[in-house]
Every structure is written in C-alpha cells, then in structure tokens.
C-alpha cells in the first residue's frame, strides 16, 4: 500500500498548491514541499527492507484482460531513482519558491511540478510495463506543461512542442516495443521479464522489440541523433531545467535501459547499438557544449554528453560497466542539479546567462562561485570529487572494451578519452570564463549572492558532491551496492570506491584528458574559428521543416477527403453504401419474397402522386429556396398521412409537430441566406451526383421491396408481449422509449440539450467579430409589410394557447397507454409558445414567459436522471420502472408509473431545447433588423382605442418605407 501511496501522493497533492496559492506564495511552496517530503518519508521508511535485499510489491487489478494491472515494486534500483526524484524535487521546490518572480503563477507551477513528479515516481516504481507506459506518456505531457510554463515566450512554446513531439513519438515506439517484449516474455511484469533474458534474446522478435524500446529510451534521454530537443527545452524556467535534466525526465530513458538491462543486454546488437550511440552522444554533446555561450545551453549539451556516457556504460554489457553507469547516475544528478541552479542564480542576479558578458563574478558572488567551482570540477572529473570516481570507472570500462573484438583494440578507449577531454574543457570554461578573470562593470544587473533559500538547495548538493568524493563507502556504498545489484541481478563484480586505484591506465587517460582539456580551453577562440569552417546542420530548422512537411502532407490528405463540400461527403457516403449494398446483394440469394402483393387503393395512388410530384418539383426547382421549403412541407404532410395509414399514430403525431418546428427553424435561418441557391457545381459533378442518386434510389426501392415481401423476425414481438407486464403500459412505442430503451432516450435528451447549447454557443460567437459586424450592418433584402403584429393573429394565437396547452397535457398524460408521450407533448407545448412569440414579438412574449430555457433543459435532464437513480433506492438497476394503481375518490382508479417522471424529463428537455434554439436564432434577426421593440402585444389594440387608431400608434409604417 505504501508503494502506491508514494506514487499517488504527488498526484493527489497537486491540488494543494493550486488551492494554497490563494493563501500566498509561501503557503503554496510549503504545501508542495510537504507533499513531496511525505512521499520521500514513506519511501525512506522502506529503506531498511530494501537494503536488506527485499523486493517490495504492491498489486491491484485494473484491466486484467489486457494484462494491465496496478503493480508496483521497489528494489534497490527503483529506490535509488525514487529517492533522487523526491529528494531533488524537495530542493527544486525550495529553489523555485525564490526563483519565480511575483508575476509568475506559482500555484500552477507547483501543481505541474507535482504531477510530473508523480509520473516520474510512477515510472521508476511500476512493475507492469503497460502501467509504466502510461506514466511514461504522463511525463511527456507534464514536462510539456513545465517546459512551456512561460507560455508568453515563443521559445518556451516551441521548445515544449519539440520536446513533446520527440519524446511523444519515442513513446509510441516504446509502446510497440513493450508489447512485443511482453508477448515474448509471456508476462507484462518487469520482475518476471528480467528473469527471462534467455527466452527474450532467443526470440525472433528480439531485434524489433529492442529497436523499438531503444527508440523510446533514446528520444527520452536525448541520445544522438534525437538529442536536439533537450537544448531547446532550456527555454523553461531554470528550476524546471534543473529538475528535468539532472535527475528526472531525461533519466527515464536511462532508467529503462538499466531496468531492462538483465533481459536485453549482452548481445552484439545491444552492444553495437547502445554503446555506439552512447559514445557518439558523449563526444558530440561535449564538443557542442564547449562552444555554447549560453550557460544553460552549455549545461544542456553537457547533460546530453553525460547521458551518452551512462548509455555507453550500459551498452558495454559487462556488470562492472553497468555498476559504473548506476554510480554515474547518482553523481551526475548531484553536480548537474547544483550547476543548473547555479546558472539560474547567475541569470537571476547578473541578468544574463551569456558567458561572453560574464567573468570575474568570484569577487561579487563568492558563495555561488565556491559552489560552481566544486560542482564543475566534479563534472570535469577532478579529484577529490565524486565525478572523478565515476569517470575513472568509465575510462576503466572503456579500456577493457574491444570494438572489433581484437586483443589490442584501443578505439573505444581513445574516443572515450576524447570525450573526457571535451568534458574537462567545457567544465573549466564554466569556472574560468564565468567566475575568474577581471571584474567587469557592464553586467546588466549588479551581481550579488542570492538569498539563502536560493543557494541552500545547491549548497546541499555540493556538500554531497564533496562527501561522496571523500567518503564514498560511507555515503553511497550501500546505496550503490543495492541499486547496482538490482540491475545486474547476479553477484556484484569487484570494485573499489576510492580515489586512488594505483597507476592504472584509466588514471593516465584521466590525466591526459585534464591536460588536453585545459590546453583546448586556452585555445578556445581558435577552436571557435576552426569550428566555424564546417557546415553544421541546424537541428531546429531541420525539425521545423520536417514538421511543416508532415503537416502539409496531412493537410493535403485531409483536404482531399474533407474540403467542406457537403456534396462530396454525401457522394462519398452514398457511394460507399452503394458498394456495400451491391456487395451484399451479390453475396446473398436475391429471389423475390413470397408474401402476396397487397391491393392498391385509389387514394393511396393520390398520395403517391403528391409525394412523387413534390419530390420531383424539389429536384427541379431546388434553387428557389422558399418554394423548396413549401414543397418539403407537402412531403411532410404526405409522410404523416402515410404513417397514419400504416398504423403508426405515434410517428404521425411526432412528424406533424416536427414539421412545424422545422419550417420555423428554416425560415428563421433563411432570412439571412440568399433566397436562391447559386449555381456552383460543374456538369461532371452534377452527372456524378445524378448517377449516384439514381443508383441509390434503385437500391433502396429494391431493398424495401425485398423486405416487404418477406417475413422478418424482429424484436417487435418481444416488445409487444412484455410492454404491459414489464413497463406497465399498452403503448408499446412509449414503453420502448421510457423503459426498454430508457437509457438510450436518456442519452438522446442529453444530446438534444447539448445541441441546443451548441446553437447558443455558435450563434453567440457569430455575433462577435467579422460576422457580427456583417449582421449589424445587414441590409434588408425584401420589401417589408407594415403589419408587424396583426390583431387577428394575436387574438387567434391567444385562444389557441389554452387549447394547445390542454392538448399537450392530455397527450403527455395518456402517452403511456395510447399514442403520445413526453416528446410529442414537448413539441406541442413548444409550438404553442412559439405562436405567441410570432404573434406579439419576441421581447413581449419573453417578458411574460419568464422562463430561462437553459435551466429548463437542465431540469429535464436532472428529473430524468433522478428518476433513473431512484430505482437504485429499491435495489433495482438504473431506470427500472415501477407502476401501481391508486384509487382516489371522485377521480377513480388510475395508474401511477415512475415512467411518467422520466417522461416529464423528456418533455422539459424538448421544450427547453426547441425554445432555446429558436429564441437564439430569432435574436440574430432582431439584431440585424434594427427594429425598436414593440411595447404592446399587437400593432393596434382596439381595447385601448375603441374609436379607431390614432395615427402615431403606427410606428412601423416608417420602416416599411425603407
């Protein structure tokens, strides 16, 4: 349980800083600190057991069918990483409290930091590789947020995007590799996988799995040629750089290399790919670092180089080299985090990170200078600091590595020494060019030592650098033994943690590197001119071009499919349906059915003629939009009649009311659209659409004919048999809606509400900006009659309102047993209300309606949902309906069903959605028409003026003159 808690604490705790920032920056930082400190404390409590060699497990099932379980385990290696992440996290939190400016939103920063921390701890403690993948992706995402924290800076955004793209693509590769690995090993548990090295390396999938996994590791750990994102990620605030690039993010790839080392290492493929990449990265990173004038750029490339060093050590494949790799991870974390924070201090206090503008700072910032000198000397590998020892180990391992498998094969040793030389050069440059030399008088700020809170965290690390160097066995001996033991698995190789190993080859290589490095630095300006002579590929440019090209391709691809032309979509969909339908037709027997043909009454022929005539007229005259709308009305009438004739009264009632609402909706929109459809499609497109339409028509006709001449076995019989017994009603259609398929209906009314809200959102957006100005300047394109609110219409609709509401209530109440129900009733009531809006104007009617249609929709969904939840109280599944009969005096016996409450929700939702959509559409019209709001319900109110209207009560006549 504690293991899960260590991972979960930062995630849960991420809420705290976001809230505590309201209590001030100190409260925010303390809250964050407490969360991390608690997690670290829980981790440390496990230390005795881990050091005793125990492996702690936590297991919980998540999706066992996929092999994805919440399995954590803690061994020495995981302990080392979790400890580094949390310990350096504490220092970073303290440092960030003083580093961030007042205007930087600290709550957000700390919340992101904790999320990232949780993801990192998740990676290093995961036992299940699928779980590890999830945390891996989480680190990519959260590091994106952290790197892009200063989102107002373009470099910040670009750097964050680049990091996300590179590490995200690596994550994809890793997913493939991990799935292969789990498949080969027969388990997704790391603790099992690392015991099955022989099986994995014998498998034919070994190479693909290895390549894919390395793709993930190398991108994350910025190995050549994927190293370019890391320097660009330096646009992040310094605490982020110090955290991500010393102990965490970039170490994730290295961590995985070490974690899977027992399973994957030892083959030729492993050696040549991993060791070569590591060696190349080490040398190239160090070489570039030497020429970076930006302090953080220098440190970034140095990080690339040191990551290459660790990768190289893991790649060699011997236990000693792996141990050296683990040791260097510890040392690198200490001195690199200290140096990053030091660079941040210089930036903060001197106002620049440009080495060319710095120098002589030792006189002004003695504390920072002391720390920088110690940490940089450790980075250079100078005794007596910890960096010296792991570098000695590295050179020792390199000296014993034969590239070509020959007896005398110094290639690797020479290249490693060259890398070490560059490393010495840039480390000394950090000391000499920044701190030593004469004091200058052109610093952007007057430099001075930072406040205690800012130098204490790096100071702590520097103390560690010294202590590990002087007393390695006491300070890190047990930790190194446990963690390296967890990687190597078998017994530890012989090694001695001390500064003096005698006159070994490694010592001479080291001495050479220091001398040559110092010499190189003294010739730095000449080296710069030498480097300028060569062509250097600019990674950012290449990357940007590649991204632009990929975006271009996908845009072309998308545009070919989705160019915004509805005709094209319709043609594509109809075409696919035709192909599918034709395929099915070819694959099955197509004999005509055996049911007898029914006689055709003459009246049905009349209906058919009307339908065909109206449809044909729509096709021919579709450019006249208003006329088309009238014709669509005719089709609606005939379809409603057809439903009635074919015994579907519910459908007919719905169709009749939907027709009315549709016509009103379309007319509202048509007011702002051209009244004639312009001719746009060229002849070939018309021909294509015509052929498709005819074929589709033939297909549908054939399908209907085939269906109607056969007996089709459907679920209808079940519904008919169970409607009364199961749903307590005799109207099967309504029972299906509120009971059998109740949850569908519930989803549908929510969708309906969302659609109405979307209309609001879209129209409100359209009222702003360019389209808003166009509407505000809209010119009326039709002559206007003076009758705005005719008396006859007003009086007629008032009378109808009462009728319509009664009919609505009636249809609603009896819906359970006879045609009707909430949906139809909702439409009828909505129409009754719309009548008033049409007759007396929106403003007048809205004042009297006093309904907020947003909340009507909300209430509808709520009532329906609560009805469903209520069945839980009686231990029934969601939306189980209940009914009983109640006898009241006078009224008599009647049925009470819970379904009616659900239907009420449907009713409210329909009324709210229809009214909201129409009122918003009409709002556009009111803004465009520039008419003053009419005060009275009608143009001329005879009750106010029994002797005829005074002339000034006809204000609208002036509008008509326009």
């Amino acid at each position, binding site marked *: 349980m504690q293991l899960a808690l260590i991972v979960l604490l930062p995630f849960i705790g991420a809420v705290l800083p976001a809230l505590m920032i309201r209590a001030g920056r100190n409260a925010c930082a303390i809250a964050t600190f407490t969360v991390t400190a608690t997690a670290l404390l829980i981790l440390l409590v496990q230390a005795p057991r881990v050091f005793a060699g125990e492996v702690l497990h936590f297991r919980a099932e998540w999706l066992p069918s996929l092999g994805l379980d919440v399995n954590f385990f803690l061994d020495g290696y995981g302990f080392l990483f979790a400890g580094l992440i949390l310990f350096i996290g504490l220092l970073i939190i303290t440092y960030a409290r003083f580093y961030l400016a007042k205007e930087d939103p600290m709550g957000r920063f700390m919340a992101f930091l904790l999320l990232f921390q949780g993801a990192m701890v998740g990676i290093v403690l995961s036992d299940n590789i699928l779980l590890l993948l999830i945390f891996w992706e989480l680190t990519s995402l959260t590091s994106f947020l952290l790197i892009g924290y200063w989102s107002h800076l373009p470099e910040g955004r670009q750097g964050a995007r680049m990091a996300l793209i590179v590490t995200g693509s690596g994550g994809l590769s890793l997913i493939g590799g991990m799935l292969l690995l789990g498949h080969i090993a027969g388990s997704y548990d790391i603790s099992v996988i690392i015991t099955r090295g022989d099986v994995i390396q014998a498998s034919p999938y070994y190479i693909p799995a290895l390549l894919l996994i390395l793709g993930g590791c190398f991108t994350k750990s910025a190995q050549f040629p994927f190293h370019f994102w890391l320097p660009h990620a330096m646009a992040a605030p310094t605490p982020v750089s110090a955290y991500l690039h010393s102990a965490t993010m970039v170490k994730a790839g290295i961590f995985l290399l070490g974690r899977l080392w027992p399973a994957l290492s030892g083959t030729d493929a492993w050696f040549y790919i991993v060791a070569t990449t590591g060696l190349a990265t080490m040398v190239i990173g160090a070489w570039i670092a030497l020429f970076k004038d930006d302090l953080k750029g220098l440190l970034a490339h140095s990080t690339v180089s040191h990551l290459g060093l660790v990768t190289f050590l893991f790649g060699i494949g011997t236990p000693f080299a792996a141990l050296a790799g683990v040791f260097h991870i510890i040392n690198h974390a200490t001195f690199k985090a200290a140096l990053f924070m030091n660079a941040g201090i210089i930036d903060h206090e001197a106002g620049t990170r440009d080495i060319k503008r710095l120098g002589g700072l030792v006189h002004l910032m003695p504390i920072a200078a002391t720390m920088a000198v110690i940490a940089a000397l450790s980075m250079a590998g100078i005794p007596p600091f910890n960096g010296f020892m792991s570098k000695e180990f590295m050179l020792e391992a390199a000296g014993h590595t034969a590239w070509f498998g020959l007896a005398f094969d110094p290639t690797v040793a020479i290249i490693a020494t060259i890398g070490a030389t560059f490393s010495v050069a840039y480390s000394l440059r950090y000391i000499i060019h920044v701190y030593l030399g004469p004091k200058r008088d052109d610093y952007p700020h007057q430099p001075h030592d930072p406040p205690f809170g800012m130098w204490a965290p790096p100071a702590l690390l520097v103390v560690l650098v010294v202590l590990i160097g002087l007393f390695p066995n006491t300070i890190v001996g047990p930790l190194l033994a446990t963690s390296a033991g967890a990687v190597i698995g078998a017994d530890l190789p012989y090694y001695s943690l001390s500064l003096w190993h005698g006159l070994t080859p490694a010592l001479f290589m080291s001495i050479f590197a220091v001398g040559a490095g110092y010499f190189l630095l003294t010739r730095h300006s000449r080296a710069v001119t030498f480097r300028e002579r060569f062509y250097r590929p600019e990674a950012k440019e290449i990357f940007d071009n590649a991204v632009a090209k990929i975006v271009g391709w996908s845009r072309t691809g998308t545009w070919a499919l989705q160019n915004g032309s509805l005709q094209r979509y319709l043609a594509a969909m109809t075409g696919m349906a035709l192909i599918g339908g034709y395929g099915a037709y070819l694959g099955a027997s197509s004999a005509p059915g055996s049911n007898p043909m029914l006689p055709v009454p003459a009246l049905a022929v009349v209906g058919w003629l009307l339908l065909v005539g109206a449809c044909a007229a729509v096709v021919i005259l579709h450019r006249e939009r208003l006329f088309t709308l009238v014709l669509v009305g005719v089709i609606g009438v005939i379809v409603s009649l057809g439903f009635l004739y074919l015994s579907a009264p519910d459908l007919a009632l719905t169709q009749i009311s939907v027709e009315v609402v549709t016509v009103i909706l379309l007319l509202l929109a048509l007011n702002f659209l051209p009244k004639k459809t312009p001719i746009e499609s060229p002849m070939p497109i018309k021909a294509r659409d015509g052929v498709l339409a005819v074929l589709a028509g033939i297909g549908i006709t054939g399908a209907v004919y085939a269906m109607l001449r056969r007996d089709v076995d459907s679920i209808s019989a079940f519904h008919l048999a169970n409607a009364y017994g199961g749903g307590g009603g005799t109207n099967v259609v309504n029972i299906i809606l509120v009971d059998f398929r109740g949850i569908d209906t519930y989803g549908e009314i929510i969708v309906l509400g969302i659609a109405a809200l979307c209309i609001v959102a879209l129209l409100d957006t359209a009222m702003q900006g360019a389209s808003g100005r166009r509407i505000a300047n809209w010119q009326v394109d039709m002559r206007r009659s003076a009758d705005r609110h005719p008396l006859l219409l007003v009086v007629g609709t008032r009378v109808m309102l009462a009728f319509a509401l009664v009919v609505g209530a009636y249809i609603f109440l009896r819906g359970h047993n006879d045609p009707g129900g909430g949906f139809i009733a909702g439409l009828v009531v909505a129409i009754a209300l719309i009548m008033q809006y049409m007759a007396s104007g929106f403003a007048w009617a809205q004042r009297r309606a006093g309904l907020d249609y947003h909340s009507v929709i909300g209430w509808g969904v709520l009532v329906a949902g609560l009805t469903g939840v209520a069945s839980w109280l009686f231990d029934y599944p969601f939306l189980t309906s209940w009914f009983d009969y109640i006898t009241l005096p006078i009224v008599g016996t009647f049925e009470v069903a819970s379904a009616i409450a659900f239907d009420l929700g449907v009713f409210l939702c329909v009324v709210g959605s229809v009214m909201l959509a129409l009122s918003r559409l009409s709002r556009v*019209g009111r803004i465009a028409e520039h008419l003053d709001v009419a005060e009275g319900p009608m143009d001329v109110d005879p009750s106010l003026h029994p002797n005829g209207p005074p002339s000034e009560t006809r204000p609208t006549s002036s509008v008509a003159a326009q």
Partner: protein
Amino acid sequence: MIFYALVFAFAAIGAGLMCNLWRLLQGPSIADRILALDTMVINSIALIILYGVLQGRTVLFEAAILFAMVGFISTVAYCKFVLRGDIIE
C-alpha cells in the same frame, strides 16, 4: 349508405388534393403555393377523419386535432416570412 358517402368523399378529396398539387406547382406567386399547401393540410384533416369513420376507430382523430391545431402555424410562418422576413421579431 355511409360507405357510399365515404367513397364519394374520398374521391372528391382525392381530386381536391390533385388540384392542390396543380396549384402548388403552377403558382404563379408564392402566396398561391402557400395557400395550396394550407388547403392540402385541410384536405388531409378531412381525409384522416373520413378514414377514421371508415375504420371505426377514434385513434386517428388525435392526429387530425394536432394537424388542425398546429398545421396553420406553418402557413402563418410562411406568410410572415413573405411579409416581414423575420418571423419572430
């Protein structure tokens, strides 16, 4: 007897509907077409009632009520659109 009356009524209404279609397609003005649709709705109401009488069922009458009650709203909306452009001012 009622059967013959019904058959006659069906024939008359059917002919009426065909005339409506003719007027609808012929126009010439949009008002003629809207009127044709409105008349078609009224004929449909009659048709529903007569069909209910023929079948001896009342269940169809509700559709007729609904048609009568809301059918004219479309007509009003069309007219308001022709006269004022904006149907909800």
